């Protein structure tokens, strides 16, 4: 009995999808293992469970030599016969089922499509398998870590968020795309940025300037900053998605371009920088593919309030959540030992205000592109 399912699985692998890439074969293998585990547990009258690596601060480690966040080995058991976990267990298997389908069909689909694909009313009840996409997304991340497969290996992608402009030509689906000729909107960075899909054909830029959001990026694009300074400009609509991070990583890693970040001066801006630089806590397993340990933080700085005599009307008071988050951020191991960063956070807390990049607009519209960033770059005035 115990042999049967394995035999079956083997049969099918050979029978059904003949032309699977080695990568897909590997992913499918881990999916089947999960299913077989359930069958075996059921046959032994045991409680089937999934061992899901824990995605939390308590299970990440800062690797000082690699200068990035790595995932620890702690795992959570997700059990079918546990009142609090029964539903998420069921959902995990649904996601696995959906991914298997995508691999068979050799199609990619968005997180939202997968959610709709798997969403249905559970037989005999009025309950939906997923109440909303926000219930589905974390389960997908859980399955990524559990199966030790990347999102793209599960044939999933997220919505495109983030753009690039500047002197680089990329090859996407066989088309050469010159990012210097993308007009006002720039090239939309795809969610899947793997080398087998996107290749860098030609690049003459000297560095990458990553800004926090689209509005700021538009300013830089309109002022043709990338032309004047021979660089690439990117943004990630706030916390950059994996596609943007992977793009930065590859620009830094393959083309050896330095990455500079222009972000808001608040705890969230600090953390965006932290994620770009050493990876995120939630997706610590992706750090090696995404972290850019050499990325620099060029602003906005807490000291800019005084340095540029910014008017009171552009200062935003810190609220309780900001203060709480700031203290969390400064206590992360990768910030803790950096005195300049500690001072930066302390200054912000002492000022009691945060600054958005747009605050510089109060000086003049193009102050940030014409004065602020060039001055930082020239003086090598940044935080590391």
């Amino acid at each position, binding site marked *: 009995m115990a042999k049967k399912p394995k035999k079956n699985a083997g049969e099918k692998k050979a029978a059904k999808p003949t032309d699977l890439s080695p990568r897909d074969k590997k992913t499918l293998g881990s999916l089947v293992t999960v299913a077989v585990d*359930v069958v075996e547990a059921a046959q032994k009258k045991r409680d089937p469970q999934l061992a899901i690596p824990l995605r939390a601060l308590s299970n990440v480690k800062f690797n000082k030599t690699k200068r990035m966040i790595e995932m620890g080995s702690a795992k959570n058991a997700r059990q079918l016969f546990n009142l609090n976990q029964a539903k998420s267990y069921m959902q995990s298997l649904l996601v696995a089922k959906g991914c298997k389908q995508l691999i068979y069909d050799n199609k990619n689909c968005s997180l939202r499509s997968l959610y709709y694909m798997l969403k249905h009313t559970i037989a005999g009840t009025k309950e939906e398998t997923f109440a909303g996409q926000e219930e589905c997304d974390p389960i997908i991340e859980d399955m990524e870590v559990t199966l030790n497969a990347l999102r793209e290996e599960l044939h999933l992608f997220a919505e495109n968020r983030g753009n690039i402009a500047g002197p680089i030509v990329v090859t996407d689906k066989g088309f050469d795309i010159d990012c210097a000729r993308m007009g006002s909107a720039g090239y939309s960075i795809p969610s899947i940025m793997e080398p087998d899909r996107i290749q860098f054909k030609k690049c003459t830029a000297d560095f990458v300037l990553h800004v926090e959001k689209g509005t700021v990026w538009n300013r830089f694009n309109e002022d043709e900053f990338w032309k004047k300074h021979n660089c690439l400009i990117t943004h990630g609509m706030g916390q950059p998605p994996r596609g943007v991070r992977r793009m930065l990583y590859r620009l830094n890693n393959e083309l050896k371009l330095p990455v500079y970040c222009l972000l808001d001066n608040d705890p969230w801006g600090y953390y965006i920088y932290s994620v770009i630089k050493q990876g995120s806590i939630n997706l610590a397993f992706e750090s090696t593919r995404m972290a850019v340990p050499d990325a620099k933080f060029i602003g906005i700085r807490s000291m800019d309030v005084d340095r540029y005599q910014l008017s009171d009307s552009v200062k935003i008071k810190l609220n309780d959540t900001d203060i709480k988050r700031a203290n969390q951020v400064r206590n992360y191991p990768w910030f803790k030992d950096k005195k300049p960063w500690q001072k930066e956070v302390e200054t912000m807390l002492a000022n009691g205000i945060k600054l958005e990049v747009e605050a510089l607009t109060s000086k003049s519209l193009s102050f940030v592109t014409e004065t602020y960033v060039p001055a930082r770059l020239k003086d090598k005035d940044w935080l590391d």
Partner: protein
Amino acid sequence: MPAQSRKAKPEKKSGKSSKSKPEADAVEAKAATNGEAPTAEPVPKAAPAKRRSTAEKMAEGQRDISVSEFFAKNRHLLGFDNPRKALLTTVKEAVDNSLDACEEAGILPEIWVHLEQTGPTRFKIGIQDNGPGIVKKQIPLIFGKLLYGSKFHRLRMSRGQQGIGISAAGMYGVLTTGKPVKIISKIGKKHPAHYYEIQINTKTNDPEILNGKGEGVDIASGAKMQADLEKHKVEWVAVNDAGEELESGTRVTIELEAIYKRGRGSIDEYLEQTAIANPHVRIHFKDSENNERLFERSATTLPPEPKEIKPHPYGIELGRLIAMLKDTRETTLSAFLSSSFSRVSSGAAKKICDAAKVSTRMSPSKAGRHEAEELFKALQEAKLPPPATDCISPIGEELLLKGLHQVVPGEFYAAATRPPAVYRGNPFQIEAALAFGGSPAAQRVSLDALTELLSQSDARTLRQFLTSNFAGLGSDAADKIIAEAEFGARQSPGKLKKDEIAKLHEAMRSVNLDDGQTMNVLRYANRVPLQFQLSACAITQTIMQTNWRSYGITQSRNALPSGPISLMVHIASVWVPFTSESKEAVASYPEIQKEIRLAIQTVGRKLGMFLRRRLEVKAEGERRNVFLRYLGEVADAVSDIRDAEDQRDELYNQLLEVAKKKTAQADAKYDNRGKKIEDADDLENDKSVLIIPREEPAAAK
């Protein structure tokens, strides 16, 4: 209805003092003015004493007041404040007396109450019992003379302990309609029945017999009875439902000015509540529209006969002591004390006399005011055992459950009878019974009954109508109903059209009233329901002060708890302390409140267990459901991933078995953990608890 119990008027018939009742005050005050110069003594009913008048002049206006006259003017003291209450009081007095009589004679009571409308605000009410009957010469006195009766001189648990008596009701009838009270009574199979038409002479407090030339008439027994009854136009139920001829009984018919309305404080409610506390009684009720309702008995044994006791020294008052000293036939104080009081041995009597510094051999009649006072003090301070408590006959847990279940629909019933206790030298006993669940009164009413209630109502708003007519319906619930039926807030209940009434009826049925419902409190004193002055009563106050939240019931601070609960509390005592002579609320003695609290806590705890267990069962079921719900999905997904759809069912069944094993373990854990499950088991075996299995409305979930 027997002579002995026909009336109950404590004290003062013999002119002795004590009890500070208004009427007593009045009489005493009057007596006092006879000897002394009139002062500014407030004499409620006396001729107005003008100032600047001489004592002689004033004396002309000073004369005796008959009790009857006094009551005729102060009818509110007797419960005749308004026409609606007058009807209830009349029924109540008659039924209470009938029950007392039947029980004393050892007859299982069966009572007929017939209501007949004779004018827009006039009703004829006939109450008949199967009691022992009344001997001929006593009939006029019992029904035509105030303060004539048997219960007054003895210390014993009975319904009419300070009762006003049926004669007051008769007097009210004569006053308002001019029609005499009609009584027919039969004391045995072979005996003829006697028929009297009586009216009370309010001046002299004497009965006047109007028929048979002042002698009444005899109605032959046996075959000729029917003819005689017809001849004299007497109503009489000759056979009971079982077809047996009534061997004895009494029927009193009174015509009076009254209004008949259902709802709170109505005859219907009184009879319903009486049936709960008297499960051995069968009552037939025919209302003015000839609707008949039978309150069937759920027990066929009479409550044990309560024993008569002597007063306990702690409960005595100085005035009463002085009166007793004067009346006693004993020749020495020592003998007087030990024979007149309960729990006073000759040794204790000597100690009391010593403490009072009087001789044990002193003649009681010679004891003056000073000696009496000393003696009184000594009596209060003496160390005596508490009074015997066998003089009380409680309803008992079993009968409480039966009675409550018979009348109040529900799922869970619990009852508790406390051991007897003592307040101020009077033994008393508290019982509580609780019914939970079942549809509230507002959801049981039929469309026709609702239409009728609406037409009778004088409430100004629909909300007022709902809260005043349906027990346990709070204003929140009323608002919910009104909102559901889409009526305006100030909708008048009298002007609803037929389809609107139907809408209201529908709303009353569909709205979930469990939350907005307040506890329905049923109060009893010596098996008699107390229908008025809810908030002034020690019972209500104690219920409010009890923390019901710990039993899983919602309750606002210092308010009655809410939920579909009926709680009945019964105080049985040789002397129930009422807050006023209207006998509507129990006074708050700490000893009594403590016993009430303990009793309701006992039933509350059991309700708590029941509710908790129900929640647990529900949670357990949900737990199982959660697993079962997801098993299918899991089996589907796994089979799909493995491309082994043919094994899907096999996997599903295996998972199902694991699920069963898992939840079985959870069950076992509950068992082993012990306490909770043990509680529940106790509940099943508890004789003071009754659980009605609920009919699940199909297993939808």
